[in-house]
């Protein structure tokens, strides 16, 4: 075979670029390019139809000083994330511990707990809107049977966030599954060694299981932050941000500005602020992780 290339290495390098080309184009056109563009767009006032107007930092000024809904949505999203993420993290971990025991019907139990997390979010939202329905919803009927006067979950500004948190807990099976896999990856000789040293079950949990699981917990925490600050579908379908903006999650505020009010510039600056917030929170978590995450490889 006649070759254009002096060496096999050159051919291999060419093929390397060729095979990676779709990924590289995708990276530039759909990720890096849009990221850079969003910074530029955030300095404009733009409805997408007429040419964009350069407004400098005006959008950011509006976010910080004039947009009351920004502060509100930031607060709602933060409260939700700070309650919901740790709650799901701990519940998922405990559930995995329990389901890692030798019990009857183990795989049926695991499946039952996991199932809610594969139900599509729109269907989850529709179902829970019905369960949370005032007076006639299953939850209120159940509470009434126990003689408890139930709140109007989705209609009361004080109860709508707790309702979302409860609903989020229904999907804890996803976290459970990852934790289960993590538990099964812990070498059993660590437990044997601990037992020989006289550690009881609780001490083994504290000194073997938890340290070995910390890298996974860190991963789940970071992914939880990224996802938890971007809640959109359930709020959009269940409450549309109401009542009186009590469930106006940040992404809902962003979506409205960009795609309902057609303020692409303002929407972009909102997106960048959220991005910054995610980075700061993740960075804080990573910084703290040196104190609590145990990596077996490097000590």
């Amino acid at each position: 075979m006649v070759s254009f290339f002096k060496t096999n290495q050159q051919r291999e390098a060419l093929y390397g670029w060729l095979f990676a080309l779709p990924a590289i184009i995708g990276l530039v056109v759909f990720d890096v390019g849009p990221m850079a563009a969003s910074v530029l767009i955030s300095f404009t006032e733009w409805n997408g139809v007429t040419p964009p107007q350069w407004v400098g930092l005006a959008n950011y000024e509006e976010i910080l000083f004039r947009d009351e809904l920004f502060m509100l949505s930031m607060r709602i999203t933060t409260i939700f994330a700070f309650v919901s993420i740790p709650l799901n993290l701990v519940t998922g971990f405990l559930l995995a511990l329990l389901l890692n025991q030798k019990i009857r019907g183990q795989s049926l139990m695991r499946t039952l707990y996991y199932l809610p997390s594969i139900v599509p979010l729109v269907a989850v939202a529709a179902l829970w809107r019905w369960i949370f329905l005032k007076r006639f919803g299953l939850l209120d009927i159940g509470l009434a049977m126990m003689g408890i006067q139930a709140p109007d979950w989705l209609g009361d500004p004080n109860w709508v966030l707790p309702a979302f948190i409860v609903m989020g807990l229904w999907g804890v099976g996803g976290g459970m599954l990852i934790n289960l896999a993590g538990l099964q990856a812990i070498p059993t000789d660590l437990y044997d060694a601990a037992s020989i040293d006289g550690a009881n079950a609780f001490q083994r949990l504290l000194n073997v299981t938890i340290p070995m699981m910390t890298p996974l917990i860190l991963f789940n925490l970071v992914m939880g932050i990224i996802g938890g600050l971007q809640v959109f579908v359930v709020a959009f379908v269940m409450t549309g941000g109401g009542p009186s903006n009590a469930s106006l999650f940040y992404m809902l505020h962003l979506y409205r500005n960009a795609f309902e009010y057609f303020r692409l510039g303002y929407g972009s600056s909102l997106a960048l602020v959220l991005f910054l917030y995610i980075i700061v929170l993740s960075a804080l978590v990573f910084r703290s992780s040196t104190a609590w995450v145990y990596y077996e490889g490097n000590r």
Partner: protein
Amino acid sequence: MARTIPYAVKGPVASIWGVLSNPYRLKSLLGRVVLYLVLLAGAVLVTIPFIWLISSSLKPQAQLVAFPPIWIPNPILWENYPKALTALPFARFIANTLIIATGATLGTLVSSSMGAFAFARLRWRFRDVVFFALLLTIMLPGQITMIPRFVLFAKLGWVNTYLPLIVPAWFANPFFVFLMRQFFMGLPTELDDAARIDGASIFGIYWRIMLPLSKPVLATVALFSVQHHWNAFIGPLIYLHDLDKFTAAIGLRYFVTDTQVHYSLQMAASAAFSIPIIVLFFVGQRYFIQGIVFTGVKG
């Protein structure tokens, strides 16, 4: 006190007595009882919403709000399903979803596996830099690129078409590239060398050696991709405006937020929308779980 079994007691009574009279065995028995009780109670709690979903979907309207709640409808109204699914053109929505899911999944299988091959098997300059950049975009929250992408596709005249939902998939998904690269790295390089000696081209190694050996990871990626496009919400919401172009997810949202539609039909539509994805999960359970476990534990 009396830790010995009374002389005359035998059989099951004896073993119960044996447990009760031994504090250590009693403690572990209690532990197991508590374990089962907690797990069962939790399993009931997570399963009730499912049962309520199905039960509500088969009820006549009058039984929806009965007190105490009716779990088994009488009569069972199977016709709620055809009624709900024809109230809006759901067959059309599902066909639309399948067109998008098929086009995008095909694209991501081809482009992501090509990228993975280039990163796992070929040596070329800047390979590791490009791969690292790709990994970073996995962490990139979707909201940051949403508006610029919309602007891009609007400029191309692709709004209200399926193209914005399909075309990006042909330019590789960073997470899938990562998943497949790790899989390719696990295949012995002796296979490539042997093929090379037999005169295989680089493309031949990719096509005839790597891909046939990678069916499990290809299945995982295909399942994740189909699931993603079945559930996808904000993308279709932004890009598809005509009712007859809707995907099932946004069609369902349109249906369940219509105050004229009673809850039986809402639940029937929600169940019908969820069941295919649950069936898909059970059919491909092995590949799903491998992928999730891989993401969590090795990611």
